[in-house]
């Protein structure tokens, strides 16, 4: 089988599974549609910004929840709110859903609940980052082999 065809098949399969397993929703598809000759790296750039955001916000939440003198739940909530905003803007639906639950625990000032959500959000973000980086690698390989990226349905 042609190398380009194989890579394209892998790309389609990876993409489909990201959607099927609920990692990404239609918002991500909209972003892919925005990518063109004028902004050929748009999706990678948006994803990178999102990963940076995640890391910074997860660190903030972690530090806030570790405070021995008493957790400032408003501060935690502010970070969760921001993460919810960025994740829904990129279509990272699993991360966003955890943020929704996370905010309830902040409101209830439930430290255990917050810590559990923090763990889940960290896990989901890592999974998504891995899968997206694989997808982007496949894109690069397809282009390097002279192929084109399969259209977004």
């Amino acid at each position, binding site marked *: 089988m042609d190398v380009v065809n194989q890579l394209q098949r892998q790309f389609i399969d990876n993409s489909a599974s990201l959607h099927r397993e609920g990692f990404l929703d239609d918002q991500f598809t909209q972003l892919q549609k925005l990518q063109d000759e004028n902004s050929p790296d748009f999706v990678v750039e948006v994803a990178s910004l999102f990963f940076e*955001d995640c890391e910074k916000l997860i660190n903030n939440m972690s530090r806030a929840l570790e405070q021995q003198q008493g957790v400032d739940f408003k501060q935690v909530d502010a970070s969760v709110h921001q993460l919810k905003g*960025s994740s*829904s803007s990129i*279509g990272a639906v699993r991360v966003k859903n955890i943020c929704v639950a996370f905010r309830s625990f902040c409101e209830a000032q439930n430290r255990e609940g917050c810590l559990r959500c923090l763990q889940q959000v960290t896990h989901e973000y890592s999974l998504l980052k891995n899968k997206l980086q694989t997808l982007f690698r496949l894109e690069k390989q397809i282009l390097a082999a002279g192929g084109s990226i399969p259209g977004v349905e």
Partner: protein
Amino acid sequence: MASENDASSSSSSKKLGEDQVNNNKNLNVLVVDDDPLIRMLHDTYLKHFGLEPQVAENGKKAIDLFRLGTSFDLVLMDKEMPIMNGVEATKALRAMGVTSKIVGVTSRGSPCEMQAFMEAGLNYCFEKPLTLDMITFVLKDFNKGDDDDDDTDN
């Protein structure tokens, strides 16, 4: 001239955007949001429609731009921002006599919060994430004066 195909399908929104490009080149747009990811996203969305938006990180910076004499036809205003949030900024702009179209964009979707934001003086309020369809809708407003005849198919 294609008329029936692009009535409702969002997959043709790209084509719709391209049609709008020529109508929108003269519109001045300001994106106000503290999140660089959102600023980048909205900036790219708007460029897709042929617009070159300016950006501001918070409400105070947006107001400063207006005070300097820059005028904008359209402002995309985030609600939650440090230093000065979207509600305060919108109220201040209206108090200054600004008549630009101000569109609120918020992560908080509760009806009460959106209502409060609207009451500050918005023209529209959308929940994040902003989509191409929402922008198309807002930009249509600017073309309404010329295009009344084209709406018969809707």
